[in-house]
């Protein structure tokens, strides 16, 4: 992210707002007038962002340390870390977190491996390439609700999966088999996304490097590991980080597929957070779970950034 927010290096791109329009306008302009134009461009959007995104961020933290009352007029009392201590001892939160972790473990590596695999097969331009690209990407653009219901139908007791595999499994009525269905959906829906990004990255690998490796007598496997992989390493980092974040934030598919059933055993962190808030109306504790998950996401992203950077320089 560092180079995304870096200071402008090119002096021709960004200049003082008034330079160039000095016809007739005095040089001794007031600072507030100087900054009026950029302010008018930035303010409307930033105001909406502040009210509807930034304030809720602060509010989430505040709600987690108050015994928050939904009812209008009710006084919320400060309860400090009580919610956080409760979270630490909450077995169901740990179960939900373990399900989120399982989802992450069983969806992120397959999406990377299969996405890269398909991208490698598709990287050479051919008449069939756009056709396959569309087919693999189709699940990505389809709404989560629709594909979730579709998988629920495929994994039904008398559904297509049981029929094709010759099984009689009641997939959605057991924690582990339900997780299989949920993870299968996650992988199926996500392959196209990583594929598309890998294709773009592979097109950026200089052909001269591959040719040079060929002349040096490197086989395809060696070329892959010592030329292609290092060249697409930043992309690999980006995809991994995004997928890990996405994995921890899984919600819609679990909510629409099982909503935690049977007996909350397939809850992930966000379905548990959602039920805590909107069914049990415990807004304070719901916020606490959201804040904790956000911190976890930040921590994991920071760790991954460091790991990928070290690997790249090693």
């Amino acid at each position: 992210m560092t180079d995304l927010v870096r200071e402008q290096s090119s002096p021709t791109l960004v200049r003082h707002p008034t330079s160039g329009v000095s016809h007739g306008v005095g040089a001794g302009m007031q600072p507030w007038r100087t900054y009026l134009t950029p302010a008018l461009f930035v303010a409307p959007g930033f105001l909406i962002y502040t009210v509807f995104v930034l304030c809720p961020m602060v509010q989430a933290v505040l709600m987690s340390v108050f015994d928050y009352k939904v009812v209008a007029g009710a006084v919320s009392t400060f309860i400090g870390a009580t919610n956080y201590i409760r979270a630490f001892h909450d077995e169901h939160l740990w179960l939900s977190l373990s399900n989120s972790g399982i989802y992450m473990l069983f969806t992120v590596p397959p999406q990377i491996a299969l996405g890269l695999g398909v991208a490698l097969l598709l990287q050479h331009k051919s008449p069939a390439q756009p056709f396959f690209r569309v087919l693999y990407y189709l699940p990505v653009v389809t709404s989560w609700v629709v594909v979730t219901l579709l998988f629920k139908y495929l994994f039904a007791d008398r559904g297509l999966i049981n029929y094709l595999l010759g099984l009689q499994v009641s997939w959605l009525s057991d924690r582990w088999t339900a997780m299989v269905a949920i993870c299968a959906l996650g992988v199926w829906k996500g392959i196209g996304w990583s594929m598309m990004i890998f294709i773009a990255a592979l097109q950026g690998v200089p052909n001269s490097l591959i040719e040079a490796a060929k002349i040096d007598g490197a086989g395809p496997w060696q070329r892959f590991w010592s030329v292609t992989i290092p060249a697409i390493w930043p992309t690999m980092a980006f995809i991994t980080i995004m997928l890990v974040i996405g994995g921890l934030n899984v919600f819609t598919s679990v909510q629409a597929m099982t909503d935690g059933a049977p007996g909350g055993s397939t809850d992930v962190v966000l379905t548990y957070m959602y039920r805590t808030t909107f069914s049990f109306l415990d807004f304070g504790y719901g916020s606490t779970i959201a804040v904790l998950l956000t911190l976890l996401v930040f921590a994991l992203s920071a760790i991954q950034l460091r790991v990928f950077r070290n690997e790249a320089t090693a």
Partner: protein
Amino acid sequence: MSKRVSPADALRLVTLAIGALVMITPFLYMVSTSFKAQQYVLKIPPQFIPDPATLSNYERVLVRGDFGQYFLNSLFVAVTATAIAVLLSAMMAYGFARYRFPGREWLFRILLLGLMIPALMLIVPQFVLAKWLGLIDTLWGLIVFYVAGNLALNTFLLRGFFQALPQELDDAMQIDGANAWRRFIGLALPLARPALATATIFTFLATWDEYAWALTSITSPENKTLPIAVALLQGPRGTQWGLVFAASIIAILPVIAVFLIFQRHFVQGLTAGAVKG
């Protein structure tokens, strides 16, 4: 013209075809089921070609159900939110890219924070805020939060684009006496068309498919959008799968059309940065 296919190429094609079959079969099966009467949807062995085929699911969804209304709700919300979000993002991006002002880097960094916080993390305080502002159970309540939620990514995408535009053009228009707003509308926006297209498409898809906030906020049947209307078709006892998939197909057709028409913008958008479907 004869073209020889090497064994390696053949193997490559076969592998891709098998993979593609896995990707596409669920969709085909969904289409097939949408033409089946309820007694055939979970029949063993499964029917790939509906026999007898029926249009009754579509008829029930469109004529007797309120899916026409839900479709219009979704369309109104997605189009309005996308238009506002893209316009405001483009303005912000232009301000950040073209002008220097105190606190610029800090404001931009605060905006980037919005890229890292997933929508669902804020749903609890946002619900409280929406309730306080009387935005619960209204389409405008959806629009406002969809706009706010899509500003960060779009501004980030477009800022990079505006920075890459040559300053000389801007200068030329300035000498001709065009003010900042006219330069933005008449010069920056037309030149940024590819980036705007990408931003528009991704925002439209995100708002069209949004589920969690609509589910939380909307309670009146007449305000439902397609994702929640489809999800709520599941019955407590035995889902009418034919009905669900007829509704699903109506819900995903616009998205698939947008995708097929604007494919190349997808590739550009994905390579430009952090867009996750």
